[in-house]
Every structure is written in structure tokens, then in C-alpha cells.
């Protein structure tokens, strides 16, 4: 009799937590999207006005576009760099662990630290990057001050921060490729590049897709980097979707509208990830 009770006792924390912190928020979120509310005064039912506002809110669409620009630069860059370094690390070389550990270092450090650091590297007058450019005779770049460069700059920094993790994932993936393939190709006289494009790349495809999906989800939550580095500027060019939701909710206290933005944005994320997954399933 007592025994039957035990499993439920064990999963009870999960059920309570799920109802409170997942079930209720999702339900309440949908309810909130039909209301105007600043938390203090009573909630006001406004029908679909929040949705109407969202579709006409150029700033929201801009934040969405910015997030997309971020992903379109960050993901390909990350795959190329990670795969390149992982390839090098599979060669017979010494100090492998040291290299791997140093590439992984930025992964563990807080995003705030990385952002403060890169703010200096990106400095216009005395930043390291512009000094290097001047040294080799190229004009200085307004990394964080030029609206065309600000988001790419953040994407480069994010790549630097995360690439170590993806190097490790690629290393795991590369280990699963049977050595015989390479040996056979060598007998046929294949070059390094041929081996890479004909064997490595097709065999590592599942890992590439995993990296794409993981960094899509990560990229959609972009917040602290623009918040600390640029505050969303210049000219809102680095305003990410999460930063915009944060501003609507906790600067202006438009809870109903912020919930609408969150709800709609989550829907887009699910859609994008779903399409990516479908794409993977079709490939295999």
C-alpha cells in the first residue's frame, strides 16, 4: 500500500514545478496577450490590439531581422572555424589537450566578462583590432559604432565565445568516421581536399545539423551581449528580439505587450527549429 505511493512522491516536485513554472506561464501568457497591464493598475481587456500593434511595430520586426542577421553570420562562421580547428586537432600532434582546453576557455566564462573584454578590443581609437588594421594599412572600422558593422561584430564575438564547444562536438563526430575510408582513398591517390569533401564532410553531416540547431536556439536568446556592449544601438542595429521583449516588459512595464512579443517570438523559434529538424529527417 505504502509502496504504491512512493513513485508519485518522487515525481510530485516535477508535477508541481511543471504546473507552476511551465503550465501556468504558458496559459497565462496567452491570456495576457489580450490585455493591457502594467502590473500595478487593474488588467484591461483589449482584444487583439496587442497583435495589431505587433504587426505594425517596426521596431519589433527590426529586432527580428537583427536576430536573423546575427544567425546568418554566426552559424556558418562557427561551423567553418570549428570544423577547421577540429580537423587540425585530429592530426597526429602533441599538446592536443592544451589546444583543446584553450579553445574551450571562453565557453565557460560568463558572457558579461566576454562582452566587457571585447568592448575594449573593438574600441575605435585604441582598440586592438583597429590598431592591427592600421598597422597593415587598412582603414579603421567602427566595430560597434557603425550600424552596418555592429551586429556582425557581435556575431564574431559570439563565435569566439562558443566555438570551443562545437570543436569538441566535431571531434566526437570525426572519431566516428571509419579509418578504412581514408586508407582506401589514399590508395586511390586522393588529395587532402578531396578526402575532406568526399569523406569527412558527408560523414560529419549529422554533427553539422546538430550544431545548426543548437546555435539557432542559442542565437535566438541573444541578450546580454547587445545589452552590455551597445544597449541595442547604434540606430537599433543590435536590438535583439529578447532585448526588445526585456525593454517592453521591464523598462516600460507593458506586460501584456511583452507577453505577446514573447509568445509570437517563441512561435517563430519553434517553427524555425521544426523546419530545420524536418530538413534533417529528409536528408537521412
Amino acid at each position: 500500500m505504502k509502496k504504491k505511493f512512493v513513485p508519485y512522491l518522487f515525481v510530485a516536485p516535477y508535477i508541481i514545478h511543471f504546473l507552476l513554472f511551465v503550465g501556468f506561464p504558458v496559459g497565462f501568457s496567452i491570456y495576457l496577450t489580450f490585455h493591457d497591464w502594467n502590473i500595478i493598475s487593474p488588467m484591461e481587456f483589449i482584444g487583439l490590439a496587442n497583435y495589431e500593434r505587433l504587426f505594425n511595430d517596426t521596431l519589433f520586426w527590426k529586432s527580428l531581422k537583427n536576430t536573423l542577421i546575427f544567425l546568418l553570420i554566426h552559424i556558418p562562421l562557427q561551423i567553418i572555424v570549428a570544423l577547421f580547428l577540429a580537423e587540425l586537432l585530429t592530426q597526429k600532434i602533441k599538446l592536443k589537450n592544451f589546444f583543446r582546453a584553450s579553445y574551450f576557455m571562453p565557453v565557460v566564462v560568463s558572457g558579461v566578462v566576454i562582452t566587457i573584454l571585447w568592448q575594449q578590443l573593438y574600441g575605435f581609437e585604441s582598440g586592438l583590432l583597429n590598431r592591427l588594421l592600421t598597422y597593415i594599412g587598412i582603414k579603421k572600422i567602427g566595430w560597434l559604432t557603425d550600424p552596418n558593422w555592429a551586429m556582425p561584430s557581435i556575431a564574431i564575438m559570439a563565435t569566439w565565445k562558443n566555438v570551443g564547444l562545437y570543436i569538441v562536438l566535431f571531434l566526437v563526430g570525426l572519431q566516428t568516421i571509419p579509418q578504412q575510408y581514408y586508407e582506401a582513398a589514399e590508395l586511390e591517390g586522393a588529395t587532402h581536399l578531396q578526402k575532406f569533401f568526399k569523406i569527412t564532410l558527408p560523414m560529419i553531416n549529422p554533427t553539422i545539423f546538430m550544431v545548426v540547431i543548437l546555435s539557432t536556439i542559442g542565437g535566438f536568446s541573444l541578450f546580454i551581449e547587445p545589452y552590455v556592449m551597445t544597449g541595442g544601438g547604434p540606430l537599433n542595429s543590435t536590438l535583439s528580439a529578447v532585448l526588445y521583449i526585456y525593454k517592453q516588459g521591464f523598462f516600460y512595464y507593458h506586460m501584456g505587450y511583452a507577453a505577446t512579443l514573447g509568445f509570437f517570438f517563441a512561435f517563430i523559434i519553434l517553427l524555425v527549429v521544426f523546419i530545420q529538424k524536418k530538413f534533417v529527417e529528409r536528408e537521412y
Partner: protein
Amino acid sequence: MKKVLYYSVLILGSFIFLYPFIWMLSASISPENEIGNLIFLPSNVNFSNYLLIFDKIPIDKAFINSIFVSVSTTLGVLIFSSMIGYALSRLEFKGRDLIFYIIIFTMTLPFQITLIPQYILIVKFGWVDSYAGLIVPYLINAFAIIMFRQYFKSIPQDLIDAARIDGCSELRIIFGILWPNSIPAIITVGIITFMNTWNEVLWPLIVIRDESKMTMPQLVTLFAVGGRAESQLGLKLAAATLLALPIVIAYVIFQKYFIQSMASSGLKE
């Protein structure tokens, strides 16, 4: 010859990934007018930035808050997810599969949708400016539950049966028998939870307003964007160094486990 090329690229790579950290450390102990030099060795070492930062913001208090929040969240996650993982993998009960599917489903749910209502819930509970507001929402973690469920499945049933015959309670089985046999799972879940909690910024920014309750990344963020650092770059870098140091030290010591944990989970953020 090819080897030389490989090593050059790899060493250059290491330099690119490590240089900013070394520069941060050296700049934070340099005199303010030498920070722009981007060299490693300051003309004279001084720790005035570190002394000043303790005067300017309650960073010592924030350090203790961060430790408290991260350690209790990690312990809570380990205890709860091993209990839930045990029930899901080793006990028979009605609704088990349903709960498992719900867990999988919540893993795919973007946090952006729950952010605003979760904050409202915290307000209604009166948990604004409290440790509970920081800890409780993170005590249950779908990834950790799945991890323990998988791991417990691989432990022989004989071990559990023998314990039951000896009259062990279910709790004793989890923490006395399964835990000592699940060290890799505990390390993986522990490291990832601790790291994510230590580095979390968005949620503390939302829940905590009172400076004495803030976590380290939150306090450093507000210091960096709030204008209190003014043009004193050295101060900002000292604050950033203090925030990075605990995780970097842990990483240098347990490097192997960090990398393995993250690779086996394939997850971050």
C-alpha cells in the same frame, strides 16, 4: 613541413583564445594610463582597482550570494532530478510515460514564452528580491532528469533487488546505492548546472532590484552599463576579472570533466 604549418595555426589559435584573458588580468593591475598599451607587463603592479571596486559596489556580498544561489540550485537539481529519474527508469506507476513525454516537450519550449508570466508569478509570491525567486524556478531541470534516467537504466537490476531484500528504503537506494555508481552523471549535471547558474544574468536582472541581494554577473553587468564605472576602465576590468576567476580556476582544475560534460550533453545556455 606540414607539421610546422599545423602547429603554427594551432598555436596562433590558442593565442587568439587566451590573449584577451591574459590582457584583462594584466590590464586590471596596470596604472590607468597604461591600460591602452595592450602589453602584458605593467610598469608597476598595483591592485588599487581591486581595492576600489570593493568600495564602489558590494561585490563581496554578491560573491557570497552567487555561491549560495549556485550551490543550492546545483544540490537541488541533483537531488530532485535523481529522484525523478529513478522513478521514471526503475519504478512502475500509472502516468509514467505521460510525465516522460511532458518532460521531453518542455525541453523544446523556448524560455521567451514563459519569461513574463514567470516574473508575474514571482511578484505574486512576494519573491522579488529573494533567494527563492532565483533558486526555486531552476530546481527542476528537464535535461538533468533525462540524464539521470538514462544513467540509472544502465545500472544492473540485481544491485537494486539486493538492496530491497536487505530492506533498503527507496531513498536509500537512490542516494546510497545508485549515487556512488553514477559519478559521471552527477559530475556532468553538477558542472553544467553550476556553470549555468553562476553565469545567468537575465533572470537575476529581472527578479532582483536590491543591490545587497544581487548575484555577481548581475552586479558587474549593472556596473558596466550603469555608468558608475565612468571612464575608469581598470575598475570595469577588475570587476570582470573577479567574476571570471572562480569559474576559470574550477575549469583549470577540472578541465577534463568540464569538456566531457558539455560534449556529452551537447548543450549550453
